[in-house]
């Protein structure tokens, strides 16, 4: 049981990074970015390339990877989102689906199908209350918590954060006060791409990167923002952890002492989660607090 909880915490931290950024984008722009998983993987693969091919130190590789991730997000915003989202909020859904297909092909072409681990080899693991965990996993979870705290501080205690929250809650009123909402839209999209990229790096360090991870990353992030209340960043983060725990318990429990659910069905949990919430609680777990930063 403890192992399942720890696994859920690790997987949840990865999902929370991605869902948190996405919730901001959805709250501000109201658009879907279906290439988010691919954007996360590109940052992860670039970090792998800087570290394993160019042999740069891990810290520098992570920074370089994040810079590439930020540039890719900027490019995606300018080409695939910005020209379309003001015409209709669903147009970027189509353009980013097309982009996800292009990026899938490019990732396969450049990095091929085999797994790429940013830190290959066996990781040093030890037992915590009966559960096996590696020092890198603890570091990653702690870094995620630190990042969330920084994000919380920026959003709630700085002028920049207050402007973002104002744009999330009423963009026209924010613009009427002189806040440059279109510029913030751009920043938020890039920030979301960088957070997703961090998720990609996390994945490449904790496990390994393969092109098939892209779609599950995207769908889990959307499950979290739908369940958390669309645009509610803290709700999305909480639900990312919730989905990760459900995934771990769904396949880790010996149901009624009779059978295990095959691990291949783990990904279906997020999809079932979306369906459940859309049917019974379409405004999300934190109904009435939608569009909240």
């Amino acid at each position, binding site marked *: 049981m403890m192992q399942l909880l720890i696994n859920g915490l690790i997987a949840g931290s990865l999902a929370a990074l991605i869902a948190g950024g996405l919730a901001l984008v959805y709250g501000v722009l109201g658009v879907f970015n279906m290439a988010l998983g691919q954007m996360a993987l590109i940052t992860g693969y670039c970090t792998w390339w800087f570290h394993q091919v160019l042999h740069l130190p891990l810290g520098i590789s992570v920074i370089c990877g994040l810079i590439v991730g930020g540039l890719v997000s900027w490019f995606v915003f300018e080409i695939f989102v910005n020209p379309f989202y003001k015409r209709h909020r669903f147009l970027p859904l189509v353009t980013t689906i097309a982009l996800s297909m292009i990026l899938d092909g490019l990732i396969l072409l450049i990095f091929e199908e085999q797994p790429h681990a940013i830190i290959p080899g066996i990781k040093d693991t030890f037992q915590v209350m009966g559960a096996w965990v590696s020092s890198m996993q603890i570091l990653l979870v702690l870094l995620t918590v630190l990042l969330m705290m920084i994000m919380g501080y920026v959003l709630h205690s700085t*002028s920049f954060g207050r402007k973002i929250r104002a744009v999330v809650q009423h963009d*026209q009123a924010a613009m009427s006060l002189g806040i440059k909402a279109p510029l913030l839209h751009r920043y938020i999209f890039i920030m979301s791409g960088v957070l997703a990229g961090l998720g990609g790096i996390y994945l490449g360090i904790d496990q390994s990167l393969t092109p098939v991870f892209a779609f599950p990353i995207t769908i889990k992030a959307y499950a979290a923002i739908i369940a958390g209340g669309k645009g509610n960043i803290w709700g999305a983060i909480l639900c990312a952890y919730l989905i990760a725990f459900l995934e771990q318990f769904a396949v880790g429990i010996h149901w009624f002492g009779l059978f295990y659910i095959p691990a291949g069905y783990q990904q279906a949990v997020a999809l079932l989660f979306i369906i459940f919430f859309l049917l019974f609680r379409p405004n999300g777990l934190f109904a009435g607090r939608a569009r909240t930063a």
Partner: protein
Amino acid sequence: MPLLSLKDLSLTIDEHQILQGISFDVEEGQIIGLIGPNGSGKTTLFNVISGFLKSSGGSITLGGEEISNLSPSQRAKRGIGRVFQNFGIFRDMTLEENILVALEALPRQQRKDLGDLKEVVAGTLDMVGLSDAGKKKAGSLSGGQMRLLEIARTLKAGKDLFLLDEPTAGVSPKMTGQVADIIKELKSNGKTVLIIEHDLPFIASICDEVVVLDVGKVVLQGTPAEVKESKELKEIYFGADPTT
């Protein structure tokens, strides 16, 4: 020179003429009422003046400067403030944050001139009788309190021209008087107000002049008394003068 001048302003969306040939001036310190039936183009005109919709023709000048090609935030920086029909407050931010974010959006020098922003926030809340609710979420306020907060915030954001879109909508009759008082206070502070309202007695009590819109055109303009007595107004609202 008028503070705001609209000349032959038009707006076409998908081949539909929404606004046509709108021309009128707003002098500094005036309160102008904008009335007309639903769908006459009042809020659309506000959206064009504040930059959320781009006009198809004509000109908008503010203090003599052409502003038609400026973005909403650029127009706001030049002194146009907007109060929204559906309450333009940030509901999940505290009252203090609602005012603080407006002050932080000011140009650097203007912000410095204000001095301690916390004191300005406290003073603004005091002005509208909400000093005890500073830490509360703005969404927890009543409609009237939200409206007062929004007007006070716009005032402190250094705006000279106020576009008020139905400021008494969703406000209790008891608080309507308070909203009227704060609008009159804007005038006494030298501010200029353009106000959309369906409540004609309210408009008559505070406005210097009234502009009547119908199907996207200015059909009548004059003092509240002149407009109230005009045959055209009755025809617009009732189809024909019911007294004839």
